[in-house]
């Protein structure tokens, strides 16, 4: 098979002096699915931006369809037939699907007016041609993220993309949306397109890709047929050492009940019952995992336990203190910590420095401020220590949190939450969108917390994560608990599935050890 794209000896040094690609070479076969894997900061995105003409390397060349190209800007790449689906989708939220599709190449009526009817028609046609269903006249902001991504893919196809670059396309998707995306990508390949996608989820890569390029520390380690590689092998190449992906060992023996939730119900402003009579306990020295399709009440449950929402009924107690009505700070004072599910929304202040983010929940304590004056000198040392201990990649402790990569931002959150010396840890989606190395670190930290006798309540959409870490698992569907698994050593995602979908249900299931 011929190569649609060849990258030869690319070296890219940013003006700041950071080397992002070092002597990178790679061939992409026409009509294949080619995955580029690597940890955050390995240089994957830089390489994509070089190919797409966003940045220009100091050395090396890019050959597209056998010809040497150097796109002045992405518009030239698009004209040549390269389309990119960014991780943060490039869509205008208040415009319709059709308007987003034709933006920049608008069909006209007369010489002046926009041909809106034709725009809808064009969009329908493209959507039909590639079998990607989208509601053409709906506004983007009213669509789920998976559908938005489909619009983005269609946008590229409409501009005659033959090579489609996807930057971590699954990081924002639920497992089910991911399935649909994969089907789409396979269909596109069969219709003659070439797909180049960045990922750090190995199961995806293994399932989808024909060829895999592994990058580590600004270099290409290898490019091989996917069939020659196992997930473990890819992980090893990516990180440069073995990764432990098996289930963690069982805890010694769990201690006292730290968190007790009893008959909890929540009704939202629209009078929809979100949580129904939820009861469970979390004990010291165990990890209780809660599995469920996202949007079945998990977010509200976390918000209630952390003092951000008030329940309609029921009680929540931490070490026998009723916490309903307490403020988040009062709850934190009970040695509760909270890794929120959306790190950008609730985890960090992205414009604030790491130092400020580290002390945001404890600045008022005598350690950090005296007589109303904050001791920045001490905080700096404190922060540098955290950065070191949690292996956070940053220029300095004064860097804005938003300037770090996703995985490192998550480590900032985890560092803050685990350094407050908590007894109860609420960990929601603790490794969402982070690379393998960071994921392993965070898993180790949670395991260590468990072994140190802390109680951990884990909420995750990633079933592998739930199955790997949980001592016990409860399954939530439509706001109530459908099943409890007390022995998790021998169960798989397939055992959880029916309960997650509410197809099966256990009578009077609850997460309590003693009823």
């Amino acid at each position, binding site marked *: 098979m011929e190569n649609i794209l060849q990258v030869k000896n690319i070296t890219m040094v940013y003006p700041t002096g950071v080397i992002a690609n070092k002597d990178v070479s790679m061939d992409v076969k026409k009509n294949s699915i080619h995955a580029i894997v690597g940890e955050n900061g390995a240089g994957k995105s830089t390489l994509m931006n070089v190919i797409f003409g966003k940045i220009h390397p100091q050395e090396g060349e890019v050959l597209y369809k056998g010809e040497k190209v150097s796109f002045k800007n*992405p*518009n030239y790449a*698009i004209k040549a037939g390269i389309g*990119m689906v*960014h991780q*943060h*989708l*490039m*869509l*205008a*939220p*208040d*415009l319709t699907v059709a*308007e*987003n599709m034709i*933006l*920049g*190449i*608008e069909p*006209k009526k007369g010489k*002046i*007016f*926009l041909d*809106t009817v034709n725009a809808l028609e064009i969009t329908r046609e493209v959507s039909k041609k590639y079998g990607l269903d989208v509601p053409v006249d709906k506004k983007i*902001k*009213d669509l*789920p*993220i*998976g*559908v938005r991504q489909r619009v983005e893919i269609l*946008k590229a196809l409409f*501009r005659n993309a033959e090579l489609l670059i996807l930057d971590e396309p699954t990081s924002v998707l*639920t497992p*089910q*949306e991911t*399935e*649909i995306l994969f089907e789409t990508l396979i269909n596109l390949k069969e219709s003659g397109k070439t797909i180049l996608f960045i990922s750090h989820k190995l199961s995806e890569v293994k399932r989808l890709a024909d060829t895999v390029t592994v990058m580590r520390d600004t270099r290409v380690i290898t490019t091989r047929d996917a069939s020659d590689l196992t997930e473990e092998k890819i992980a090893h190449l990516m990180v440069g050492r073995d990764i432990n992906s098996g289930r963690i060992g069982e805890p010694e023996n769990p201690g006292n009940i730290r968190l007790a939730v009893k008959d909890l119900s929540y009704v*939202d*402003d*629209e009078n*929809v019952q979100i949580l129904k009579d939820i009861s469970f306990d979390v004990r010291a020295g165990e990890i209780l995992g809660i599995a469920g*399709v*996202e*949007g*079945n009440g998990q977010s509200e449950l976390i918000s209630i336990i952390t003092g951000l929402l008030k329940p309609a009924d029921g009680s929540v107690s931490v070490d026998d203190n009723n916490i309903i009505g307490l403020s988040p700070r009062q709850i934190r004072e009970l040695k509760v910590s909270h890794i929120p599910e959306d790190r950008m929304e609730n985890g960090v202040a992205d414009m604030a420095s790491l130092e400020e983010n580290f002390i945001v929940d404890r600045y008022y304590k005598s350690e950090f401020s005296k007589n109303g004056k904050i001791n920045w000198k001490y905080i700096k040392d404190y922060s540098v220590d955290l950065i070191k201990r949690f292996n956070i990649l940053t220029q300095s402790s004064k860097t804005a949190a938003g300037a770090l990569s996703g995985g490192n931002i998550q480590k900032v959150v985890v560092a803050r939450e685990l350094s407050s010396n908590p007894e109860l840890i609420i960990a929601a989606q603790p490794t969402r969108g982070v690379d393998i190395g960071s994921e392993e670190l965070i898993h180790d930290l949670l395991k260590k917390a468990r072994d140190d006798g802390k109680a951990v309540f884990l909420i995750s959409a990633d079933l592998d994560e739930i199955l790997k870490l949980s001592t016990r698992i409860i399954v939530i569907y439509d706001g109530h608990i459908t099943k409890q698994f007390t022995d998790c050593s021998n169960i798989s995602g*397939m055992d959880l*599935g029916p309960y997650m*979908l509410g197809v099966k249900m256990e009578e009077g299931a609850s997460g309590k050890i003693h009823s």
Partner: protein
Amino acid sequence: MSPLLSSIFSTGFAFAILRVMTPLLFPALGVAVSELAGSINISLEGIMLMAAFFGVIVSAFTGSLFLALIAGMAAGVMMGALLAYFHLKMKADIIMGAIALNMFAMGMTIFLLYIFTGDKGSTSSLQSLVFPSIEIPLLKSIPILGEIFSGHNILTYVALLAVPFFYVLMFKTPLGLRIRAVGQNPHAAESVGINVDKIKLYALMLSGFFGSLGGLYLSMGYVSWFSRDMTAGRGFIAIAAATLGGNMPLGVLLSSLLFGFVNSIAIYIASLNVPSELIQMIPYLVTLIALAVFAMRAQRIKNRVGEIQEHFDEDAVKAVVKDVLKTGGES
């Protein structure tokens, strides 16, 4: 009926509302264009002052209404372009740039006023022109309607026509689509080859264009001279009107009418024995109240939309999950 009420329920009052609304509607449309482009222009006050001044001066020295119109519009569009230059080329904060332009316009017009007339107060010593008023054939002979809608200055009709013009421009042309796309997600626009800075420049020039008509009306229709600071905060009330109207043509028209109504009331009450300072507060007070009410409503709507969206996602996802399981979840 009290004299105040009887004058409010007169056709003369309704006529006054349209008259008073005109110099609010133009700049409000100007603000709306800029807001839709994501770069809010708060220099409409300065734009109107400049247009009002140059219109009067050019008409006085050339005797041509057409040249005065061109000069006023050019002054407004130039101000918009200047703001774009500060904001897009020199990377200045657009609010700071606009504040500077407002102060510049205020000083500049007084300075030039003195140069041209030797007076720092107004151009009353000059013989300047005004735009004509128009009696609309047919309509003027209809009893009440005729008295309200006929006989206005031509620019009042232009203002009313500017609303559908704004709608067509923003929602029915490629330029409008691009302006809105740039305002909502500049990266998205950029990614499909749209020159974001160019679109914003156009939007700010359009903003200046709308504003200039408001300024021209003030000095060559509403009254027949230019006086210092004659905009009297209309450029700022226009921001409130645009926001209140959701930057949408009909909304902006309605909110401008509301402010026109309140201003007219203030003018009518002035004939009663009430301290004038109190009366002059009314339009601004209503602006504050209107914005507060609007903000509360917007928050409530936002909450609702957020919830609806959550539910939408949830159902969609569940449907998909079931589908996947049915068609071979084991594969």
